[in-house]
């Protein structure tokens, strides 16, 4: 496990290639580790018929809504929480 709760991270801005669960709207955006969920099989390799090993750490990452949407018109403190696998996270 590389990251701890409270750390700031950036979601890798990689383009789409094959099956993955990181939504486009998060790519390149910065957030904060809220929680370490634990280790799970990797859906990106399971999607191609493997056992999904080695296990990947999954994190709950929190984003400020105004950071995600340029014209966000609601409360500036609204946050969005998303599960993201470790290999999509970069230290900031």
């Amino acid at each position, binding site marked *: 496990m590389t990251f701890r709760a409270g750390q700031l991270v950036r979601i890798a801005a990689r*383009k789409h*290639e094959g*099956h993955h669960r990181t*939504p486009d709207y998060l790519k390149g955006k910065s957030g904060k580790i809220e929680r370490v969920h634990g280790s799970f099989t990797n*859906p990106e390799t399971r*999607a*191609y018929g493997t056992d999904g090993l080695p296990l990947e750490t999954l994190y709950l990452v929190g984003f400020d809504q105004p950071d995600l949407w340029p014209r966000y018109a609601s409360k500036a403190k609204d946050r969005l929480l998303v599960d993201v696998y470790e290999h999509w996270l970069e230290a900031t």
Partner: protein
Amino acid sequence: MSTVGRLYDRVMERAVHDLGGRPTTAPIDRTEHELADWELLMDAIVGVLGKNGLVNVDELRRGIESMQPDVYERASYYERWLYAIETILAEKGVLSPGELDSRLDT
């Protein structure tokens, strides 16, 4: 792997299913519909394939995401499941290419 799968696996800006945050003025259809028999059957088949280790949920998703964008847009929820398991089972050699279509023609 099928040609369709290779198309999907190439690097692209954004895949057709990755809709979150995409600007649209189209209204969201929230109407419910009574499930048809074939839709219930589709759900059961995917459950059995999963339980027997033939198609896992990540493969199912990948199969759906590999649909050509225009076909994906037109397809209903369970039509996408059908497309996906046909793609995955053909990849694994459980179904031969065109097997389902040829059975439907007889």
